[in-house]
């Protein structure tokens, strides 16, 4: 597997970069200014398509030579035939998406595999914040105060596992990230972020 030596690369981007196979096709939902897609195009020769809501980010994507669709995620997934992409990436925006169920099911239809990255609400510091501080948690992966958070859903790793089980979604692989390293034991307690690789609905 091709590894990349870029110290500035965000840990979640590094993991996703390693997951995606060379020459594959990728749809990145909420691709922002296209950093991850651009890296994948350059280093792994992927065929990239992004979806992004902010107009400013669209220009930045186009300047990088990326193909990007200006709009919300819900509206951007329809019409693609089944299995149009090898991977659909839903990194750090699921918690901001209103119709999560619809978006995940559509992603699984449109992509062969879906890579989901989200902040873990049950991280130990969140629990302390809430239990002892009596305040809504603010952590490195959930950095917003309650009044400015774009997040409309708060979920833990365990919540997401239960959800996949209930919906019959095949979990191919999981990655758990702490502040510096990957977390092996008790991820729901010690992981700031989780990355799930999902396969088809069983």
């Amino acid at each position, binding site marked *: 597997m091709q590894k990349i030596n870029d110290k500035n690369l965000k840990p979640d981007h590094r993991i996703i970069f390693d997951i995606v196979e060379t020459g594959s096709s990728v749809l990145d939902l909420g691709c922002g200014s296209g950093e991850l897609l651009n890296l994948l195009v350059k280093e792994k020769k992927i065929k990239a398509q992004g979806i992004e809501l902010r107009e400013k980010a669209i220009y930045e994507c186009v*300047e990088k030579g990326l*193909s990007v669709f200006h709009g919300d995620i819900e509206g951007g997934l329809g019409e693609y035939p089944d299995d149009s992409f090898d991977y659909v990436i839903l990194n750090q925006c699921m918690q901001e998406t209103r119709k999560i169920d619809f978006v995940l099911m559509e992603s699984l239809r449109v992509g062969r595999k879906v890579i989901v990255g989200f902040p873990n609400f049950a991280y130990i510091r969140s629990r302390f914040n809430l239990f002892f501080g009596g305040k809504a948690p603010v952590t490195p992966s959930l950095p917003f105060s309650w009044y400015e958070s774009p997040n409309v859903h708060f979920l833990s790793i365990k919540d997401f596992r239960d959800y996949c089980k209930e919906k019959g979604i095949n979990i191919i692989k999981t990655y758990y990230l702490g502040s510096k390293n990957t977390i092996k034991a008790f991820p729901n307690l010690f992981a700031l972020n989780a990355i799930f690789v999902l396969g088809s609905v069983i």
Partner: protein
Amino acid sequence: MKSAAETVETKYFNFAGPPDEMVLESGKKLGPITIAYETYGRLNENRDNAVMVLHALSGDAHAAGFHKEDKKPGWWNDMIGPGKAFDTQKYFIICSNVIGGCKGSTGPSSLNEKTGKPYGLDFPLITISDMVNAQKYLLDYLGIDRLLCVVGGSMGGMQVLQWVASYPERILSAIPMATALKHSPQQIALNEVGRQAVMSDPDWRGGDYYGRTQPERGLALARMIGHITYMSDESMENKFSRKLKNGGYNFSFKPEFEVEGYLHYRGDSFVKRFDANSYLYITKALDYFDLSSVDNFLPADRKIDIRFLVIAFKSDWLYPSYQSREIVRKLKTRRLDVTYCEINSNYGHDAFLLEFPEETRLISHFLTRVYDHAKNK
């Protein structure tokens, strides 16, 4: 100061002389045909740097540069030229006047060789597809096998979509702007009001007015309506508000609001440069346009390897952005490479002629990628 390089001339291409007339979508034949066109930049040795720019309803072949003695440059001069989005140091730009028009290409005001008089209503009804077929003759004549890009806004955007449908193997990329796959009932209705304004003018005389005055009042009225649809509520507020020409009410029906004066000015200047019958024929071509079926737009039995940049404008209510998103949806069903941007402009439909910085940012990078990709192939 105008440099010599900026001075451009309109050229004319003649084809489809009898017995090889061009067969129109209606089944009727048209010929001989003249197409007025201009080119900017140089066609390279490989003949692979050509871009076709397609104009809107009242546009013409003069897209950039200056005609000798002219003070005003072509209609898209901010986009075409050295270092601009369509960089003439890199690309060869072609712009042709549509058939049915009155800016040098064959249209209802042209001489009908059979009668020795202007066609008038003897000119056959034409469609967007007929316009594109005529452009293809021009492309063949210029010896260009594949266009790097076809680009246009409004009716120009429809021609872009028609190029995709008719000759997908002849183009590498397409930029439809502020346009639609079909005219909606609202768009048809607005056009019909414009046509009725022309046809109800007694000077129209069933289209047989050549050698006399043309139906000026009717055509000016049609253009006034048109201009309202090209702006937005917000852009009209910004431009005119309720400003009065003389500072107070006249208590008469003479134009006193600035917006009234503007519309009259637009109407009056339009009749000096545009033929009323051409207005009827071209608006009808717009109304006939319908590529909303994916089988017509992107036929499954044809290999389509075209990159798309679809651009819409937020305040455009004449060609609302949902119509551009509909184009994108159709492209997605064929898994085509597409970038879509809705530019946050308050200029209404006119935005595609005004929002140069945003358009330049999108188009220059998009074109560079298409060009580099083609060269590396």
